[in-house]
């Protein structure tokens, strides 16, 4: 049979190929983003809370167990938290309370932003360029285990104001988490995608933009959720030492002033606000990876 347009003749003459085929890294996509798809079981969550609060109430106020009886009781804390004129000065009706929350939120916001804006591009390039990885990764890994606390003296020397000092300290842990997860995300991308893009005619930069960045997204957002938690973690420690406003400061100050219910109020507030901010990151992730949400909703049907 004869053919006209669209064909080409291919000749392989005496070809000899050597070496092993490079095995493509099979990805281990984290399904954390998909958990949101499971229909929520609010009843179990409420039951969980109820059991915890019930135990607290029982241990402190009813049974008066040995060490527990010195803790602030559930009823005391709840009464304080919801009272219009609280004995120890903090409740949902006092402006002081919201000032602490907002200041902590602002600090977390800045540290999350900075660590993300530096960490994600760095992680992408570390995964993308082998040369850069060989150059920068050993230094990165050497610094990574150093905790923020160890950086305090350096931070005081390097940064002029208390606020910028705190910001630096709170950025450290999230930065490392974000960068590492992003880098692993890039490395997890099946090389078939990059090869496909190349033979379809994409330039190196186009492959980066259309394959690497979206392909690494699931890992990037896992990293961001973790880093959000680390932002709070690092922040509270810093605030306890720094001595002005914020939830961490509020907790340690309440301890100094023997206003124990406020400690619990502070902790509970941290829990709620932390949960909310992590939730926001997750929702953003789900929005940016709609393709994954839809795929998981179908149970990954083939």
């Amino acid at each position, binding site marked *: 049979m004869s053919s006209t347009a*669209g*064909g*080409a003749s*291919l000749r392989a003459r005496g*070809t000899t190929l050597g070496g092993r085929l490079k095995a493509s890294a099979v990805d281990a996509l984290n399904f954390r983003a998909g958990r949101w798809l499971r229909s929520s079981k609010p009843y179990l969550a409420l039951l969980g809370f109820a059991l915890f609060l019930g135990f607290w109430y029982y241990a402190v106020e009813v049974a008066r167990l040995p060490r527990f009886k010195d803790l602030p009781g559930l009823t005391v804390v709840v009464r304080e938290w919801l009272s219009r004129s609280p004995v120890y000065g903090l409740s949902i009706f006092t402006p002081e309370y919201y000032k602490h929350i907002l200041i902590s939120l602002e600090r977390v916001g800045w540290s999350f932003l900075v660590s993300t804006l530096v960490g994600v591009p760095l992680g992408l390039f570390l995964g993308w360029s082998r040369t850069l990885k060989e150059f920068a990764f050993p230094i990165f890994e050497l610094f990574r285990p150093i905790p923020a606390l160890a950086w305090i003296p350096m931070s005081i020397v390097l940064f002029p104001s208390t606020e910028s000092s705190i910001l630096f300290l709170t950025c450290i842990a999230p930065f490392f988490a974000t960068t590492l997860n992003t880098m692993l995300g890039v490395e997890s991308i099946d090389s078939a995608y990059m090869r496909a*893009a190349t033979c379809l005619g994409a330039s190196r930069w186009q492959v980066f933009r259309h394959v690497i960045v979206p392909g690494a997204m699931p890992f990037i957002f896992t990293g961001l959720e973790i880093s959000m938690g680390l932002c709070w973690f690092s922040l509270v420690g810093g605030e306890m030492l720094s001595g002005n406003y914020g939830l961490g400061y509020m907790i340690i100050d309440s301890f100094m002033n023997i206003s124990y219910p406020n400690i619990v109020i502070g902790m509970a507030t941290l829990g709620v606000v932390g949960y909310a901010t992590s939730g926001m990151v997750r929702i953003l992730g789900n929005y940016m990876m709609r*393709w994954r949400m839809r795929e998981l909703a179908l149970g990954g049907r*083939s």
Partner: protein
Amino acid sequence: MAVDHCSLDIAAGEICMIVGPSGCGKTTLLNAIAGFHEITSGSITLDGNVLCNAAKPKADPGSDRIVVFQNGALFPWKTNLENVKFGPAMRGIMSKAEITEKALGMMADAGLAGVEQNFPGEVSSGMRRRVEIVRALMNDPKVLLLDEPYRALDSLTKSVMHEALLEIYYKNKVTIFFITHDLEEAIFLGHKVAIMTTRPCKPKKVLTIDIPHPRDYGVLTSKRFRELMEETEEIVHEEALKAFEAGEREN
């Protein structure tokens, strides 16, 4: 060493099926043609132009030889339509409107109308294969390199996909280099079938399938088909046994 002194000629517009046991080096050969792997000696030419030889061991990957991968490489984060438009969109050779028009047309031709706005993860694997083939054909490649594309499909879907591929082929007449381990698939689709030895592979037997095109599913029960199967089954089985004994790993 994966391939040793393999010589093969494929004419323009021909469907050449490469049959061989798993791990024999067929994918390595395809990768060399596509430009993902280096060759140690010999040469590969396309329409007389050298793709690679001893002086230039690695061919440049390009849209004249497009690969359809074994496990599928449709970008899961792009819709089917965006995937299909990817090649021309990246190369910037046509205007956006032209690309969209061509894409919609080709998808409709391949029976994919209606799933343009879905993501690959939302459609069946048979459809995904077709989208991937259309994505390749959008770039008017000279050669389509198919690496066991129907391996993961069940046999019912497979038989439909064969006819779909032939339909697409009759419209586009592109040269096809198709790797498979399924002898029936090879004889049904191909003009030429090359049976490869185990690693390191080279063609053990190359036969021309003289069943005329256009073919349809009825061919599978024809006398000539049965004859060809008988001729080749034993050779393929022999190589498969050797591979099994040598404990070849799957690619």
